[in-house]
């Protein structure tokens, strides 16, 4: 039998890096380049697997007790409703972001007259982005009794280098999101009356709590640790005081 060339070896490795094939072990033992290629390929596989493991949302179990056709009809109706609520969103959150920026810029202007710019910590740009984001994912702001899977919560929080205590409450939604250029955990916990969004920002330090609202949502950004902050956002009327007072003890940065 003809001996396998380096090129043939590489091709076999790229076809199925984890599968054994005839001559693989011998080639790795006798050929430095082959061994190096195989090692590099295995490192690539680890990254590839991490890339393919996208976060998994909560997928409601279909109603198994109903007749199939009625379940399909219900699913279609729910989807139509979900999609109908989305398209205007871009225009709406652009407006909200703009409005929030204007209001906060005005506040910033007044405060600028009172204090040095460096001490102002209002972060109107960040608030606008937070409101924009919550509006974008408004479909997820709903009352739910089923928790997000622990693996999803763990994935979402640890990839941002954070950890959330279990006693934070029922986390019904967890996703990694990009806010202000950073990938951060977006969690939804169940508050007294409805859902509360938590956007954990390990790299957004603030000096003091920043309350904000846009007429539909209200929230507060509170400092967490030395380098970060967390935005707590609920619909108007949703009490945020309890979670605001305790959140800093329930989130750890830099794990």
């Amino acid at each position: 039998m003809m001996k396998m060339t380096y090129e043939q070896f590489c091709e076999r490795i790229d076809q199925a890096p984890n599968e054994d094939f005839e001559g693989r072990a011998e080639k790795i033992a006798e050929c430095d380049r082959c061994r190096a290629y195989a090692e590099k390929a295995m490192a690539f596989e680890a990254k590839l697997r991490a890339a393919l493991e996208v976060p998994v949302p909560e997928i409601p179990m279909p109603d198994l007790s109903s007749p199939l056709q009625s379940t399909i009809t219900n699913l279609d109706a729910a989807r139509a409703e979900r999609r109908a609520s989305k398209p205007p969103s871009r225009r709406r959150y652009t407006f909200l972001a703009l409005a929030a920026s204007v209001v906060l810029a005005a506040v910033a202007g007044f405060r600028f007259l009172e204090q040095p710019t460096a001490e102002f910590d209002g972060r109107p740009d960040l608030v606008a982005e937070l409101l924009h984001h919550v509006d974008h994912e408004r479909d997820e702001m709903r009352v739910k009794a089923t928790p997000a899977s622990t693996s999803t919560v763990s994935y979402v929080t640890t990839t941002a280098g954070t950890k959330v205590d279990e006693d934070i409450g029922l986390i019904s939604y967890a996703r990694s999101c990009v806010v202000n250029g950073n990938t951060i955990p977006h969690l939804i916990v169940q508050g007294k009356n409805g859902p509360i969004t938590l956007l954990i920002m390990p790299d957004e330090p603030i000096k003091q709590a920043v309350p904000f609202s846009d007429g539909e949502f209200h929230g507060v950004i509170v400092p967490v640790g030395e380098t970060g902050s967390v935005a707590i956002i609920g619909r108007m009327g949703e009490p945020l005081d309890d979670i605001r007072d305790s959140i800093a003890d329930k989130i750890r940065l830099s794990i």
Partner: protein
Amino acid sequence: MQATDDERSRQRRFENLVGTYREDLFRYAYWLSRNRELAEDVVQDALLRAWRSLDSLREDAAAKPWLLTIVRRENARFFERKRLETLDIDELHQAQQAEIAHNENSDVDDLRQGMLALADEYREPLALQVLMGFSTQEIADVMGLKSGAVLTRLHRARLQLKALFDNDSVDDD
């Protein structure tokens, strides 16, 4: 009473299977459709079909390929039914970039973008192999291909992904 007990037992069996493979089903549907929302819909519809034909699954050990095959068919039905337009890759990248999780490792992000840009014929076998741990023959069975064709696609898929950020890795000779 017996019928009710049987039904409960059937439902428990189904929920256990779905609980075990839920993440796999969604990720497979996602890499088929490249859209989270569509993937959720496809998985829900697939679960309904799986529930209806659960009795045809003789052994739970065979549940994974059985469920993935249902997801695959449902995805094809979904695209046919909705007659979805061909996705624009640039737009898709921008949309999906905001939707899928970003990893602190930029290589992982690059690979996700690379996967989204791969042709269906390369993306699917790679997802089945890397994510689902399927052997070449199992991939061939799911996709209705010969093993040789699967291996060729896997090789080309990896070459394209590696070329994204490491041009010399495949030309080391």
